[in-house]
């Protein structure tokens, strides 16, 4: 770190209201990991209710009883069905909007994109700070809403009206929080796009960008263009709930045997269109940056160039574009008509093509590589088949005929959790193990990491695979007793215990990870980790100042000569060629 630039920064401006993209990235990372833990804990409680309906929960029972009483529900230490609905809605909301997206875009994007394009910071550092400080209040509002009478939002993370229009006040808080989160995403995405387009260093042409940067760029466009329609929907629903309008309330709606005194004339389907116009691209917001992480880790640990780099780039663009044209495949059962269903069924089949191209490129990249089986690579290798399962199980859902049977069953839950949990979250773990030495200068412990990986791998499948079996048998996804009151579920009910035990063991499997993070932070600095422990080629490893990184990132602005994945170049002594190293002519 250069001392001549050193000047006194108070604790507040350095760590709290920081405008340094790296500090903001870490802030996002810590906050999002915390929210992931909360979202996961909600699910572990729900899994007790599903395995042993209406029995008192061990360990956290007294807390659930206290919370239920506060919300006005009756509980003897069990999870009442009203609170089950709250937990279900908030599990989805917290995991997606407060956990995964802030972690993968807010933390990884913020920390790595400027480093990988050789920029001293984001293009708009103050907007970047505003983005985090708009995310955090959104999260806090969501958490506070748990303690309201009637609890937090309970209409599912999709918040379908008319139910959500007449739900308890937690829903209003949910909407307000969502508007904060949407603002945060908007500011963040503008920042990332401008940084990539404007701040690439000399020589870093488009086709020399690491795939991670491409994936963040496409993701940012999705966030930028898909979130505003949800904002419209949220504003409409707020108006419905506060000003008594009927955007989503049809005429003659009867609630609890009484006609609702509203003007009517609204359309519940309008919400679904606006919501899914966001929420389908949101799926790609979740998975694309994950693919970016996997690409970096695979290329680095197979020690050979990524197979089909250009196909990956074009596929991700096509994926981003197509993701705006498939939203109504979530609505096949709304009676919107055969013509519409056919259209969206075709676009849905088309969008699976670029996903398959991306997955195939990753698999072909493994071919003939000298693979290093370190922890980041294990997570990446685990990611490939698990995401494959998630993707392929989506096809029957995208065909309107088979969707009639599968819609709103546990099959859907299994499908999107395979995409998001072992998919995105494995990519996140892979990225955390991979870039941790860049952030802290210390390597995470390999043994603990391997325990973390193998346990997570087994139990993730234990949680999600039986869902396909239950779903094919027709068990609905939102039942507070896990289907116990339905005769057709009787044969597959036994899986509930398997899934629940897997979920709790999956929770235990995260302990080595948390211990690893904290323990490593307290360890002395490992000199090996300082410079470039993975022998990587991209700028953040080869040219940025040693961790902890100084504000400004680079001692002198790098110049790029090579593509991002020049591994094992024939005739070279080292098996990697940094992007910024000029090859001598004639060699």
């Amino acid at each position, binding site marked *: 770190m250069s001392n001549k*630039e050193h*000047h006194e920064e108070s604790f507040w401006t350095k760590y709290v209201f920081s*405008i340094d993209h790296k500090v903001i990235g870490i802030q996002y990372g810590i906050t999002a990991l915390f929210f992931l833990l909360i979202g996961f804990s909600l699910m572990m409680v729900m899994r007790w209710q599903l395995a042993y309906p209406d029995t008192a929960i061990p360990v956290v029972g007294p807390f659930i009883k206290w919370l239920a009483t506060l919300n006005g529900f009756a509980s003897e230490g069990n999870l009442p069905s009203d609170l089950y609905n709250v937990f279900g809605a908030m599990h989805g909301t917290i995991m997606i909007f407060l956990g995964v997206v802030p972690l993968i875009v807010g933390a990884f994007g913020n920390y790595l994109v400027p480093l990988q394009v050789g*920029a*001293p*910071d984001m*293009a*708009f*550092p103050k907007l970047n700070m505003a983005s985090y400080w708009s995310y955090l209040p959104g999260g806090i509002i969501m958490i506070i809403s748990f303690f309201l009478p009637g609890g937090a939002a309970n209409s599912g993370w999709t918040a379908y009206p008319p139910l959500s229009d007449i739900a308890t006040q937690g829903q209003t808080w949910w909407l307000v929080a969502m508007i904060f989160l949407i603002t945060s995403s*908007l500011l963040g*995405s*503008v*920042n990332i*796009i*401008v940084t990539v*387009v*404007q*701040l690439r260093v000399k020589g870093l042409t488009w086709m020399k960008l690491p795939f991670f940067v491409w994936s963040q760029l496409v993701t940012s466009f999705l966030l*930028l*263009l*898909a*979130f*505003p*329609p949800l*904002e*419209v*929907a949220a*504003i*409409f629903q707020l*108006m419905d709930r506060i*000003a*008594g*309008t*009927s*955007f989503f309330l049809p005429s003659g709606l009867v609630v609890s045997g009484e006609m609702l*005194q*509203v*003007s009517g*004339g*609204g*359309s519940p389907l*309008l919400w679904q*269109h*606006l919501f899914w*116009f966001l929420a389908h691209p949101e799926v790609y917001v979740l998975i694309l940056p994950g693919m970016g992480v996997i690409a970096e880790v695979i290329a680095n640990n197979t020690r050979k160039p990524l197979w089909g780099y250009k196909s990956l780039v074009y596929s991700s663009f096509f994926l981003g574009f197509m993701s705006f044209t498939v939203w109504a495949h979530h609505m096949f059962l709304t009676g919107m008509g055969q013509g519409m269903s056919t259209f969206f069924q075709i676009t849905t089949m088309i969008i699976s093509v670029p996903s398959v191209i991306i997955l195939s490129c990753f698999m072909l990249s493994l071919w003939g590589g000298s693979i290093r089986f370190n922890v980041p690579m294990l997570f990446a290798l685990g990611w490939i088949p698990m995401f494959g399962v998630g993707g392929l199980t989506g096809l029957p859902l995208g065909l309107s005929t088979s969707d009639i049977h599968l819609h709103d069953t546990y099959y859907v839950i299994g499908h999107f959790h395979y995409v998001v949990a072992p998919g995105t979250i494995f990519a996140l773990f892979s990225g955390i193990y991979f870039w941790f030495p860049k952030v802290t200068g210390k390597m995470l412990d390999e043994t603990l990491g391997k325990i973390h990986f193998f346990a997570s791998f087994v139990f993730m499948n234990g949680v999600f695979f039986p869902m396909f079996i239950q779903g094919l048998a027709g068990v609905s996804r939102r039942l507070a007793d896990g289907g116990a009151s339905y005769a057709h579920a009787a044969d597959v009910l036994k899986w509930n215990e398997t899934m629940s035990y897997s979920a709790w063991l999956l929770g235990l499997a995260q302990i080595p990870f948390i211990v690893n993070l904290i323990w490593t932070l307290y360890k002395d600095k490992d000199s090996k980790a300082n410079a470039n422990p993975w022998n990587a080629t991209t700028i953040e490893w080869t040219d940025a100042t040693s961790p902890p990184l100084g*504000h*400004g990132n680079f001692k002198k602005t790098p110049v790029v000569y090579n593509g991002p994945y020049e591994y094992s170049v024939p005739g070279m002594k080292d098996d990697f060629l940094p992007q910024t190293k000029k090859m001598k002519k004639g060699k």
Partner: protein
Amino acid sequence: MDIKIPYNEDLRPDTGLYNAKLGIWLFLASEVMLFGGLFSSYILLRAGASVWPPIGLDGQSVAHLLEETIGLATFNTVALITSSVTMVMSWVSLKMKDILKFKMYMWITISCAIIFLVVKYFEYSHKIHEGFIPAHDTYMALYFTMTGLHVLHIIGGLFVLVYFVMPNGIKMWDDEPIRFTNRIEVFGLYWHFVDLVWIFLFPVLYLLN
């Protein structure tokens, strides 16, 4: 802060843009999606209604009141278009390094924005007074939500406009004149966009009934 972000003032050769200009265009793209969502919802709800504007629970329709307010809305349209013109003029004045003219045009812009808001206030209160609140029918709900969001954009813009002519904002002209001119240009783009939204709102909500 001692870190200098590249292309904050000067143009990046291969894109021909400075950072804030790309930033504002991206922001406006997302605004297009916001208002696009609103107008699409308008089409969907109107297509599902048997009469437009619909008849509320009190058996009344706002149709008669709308014809009275077309005049006011036309006046507001003129006010906003004028403000867009003066916004460009103030930017041009900066390019000509004429800070006095800049201030004059900025104040005209500010006045137009205030006039727009005052007229809007009378329109709103008149409608509410007659019982046409947002909950009356879906037309009123759309009317208040869409124009309300537009008014929020005007109010936000007004704060920025005032900041630019206050000592705190304008002192950048002495230190970093290019950056200040860029700021006015970028804000101008936003202001034209807000104007443009009104150009769509006016016929959709007042004339096409």
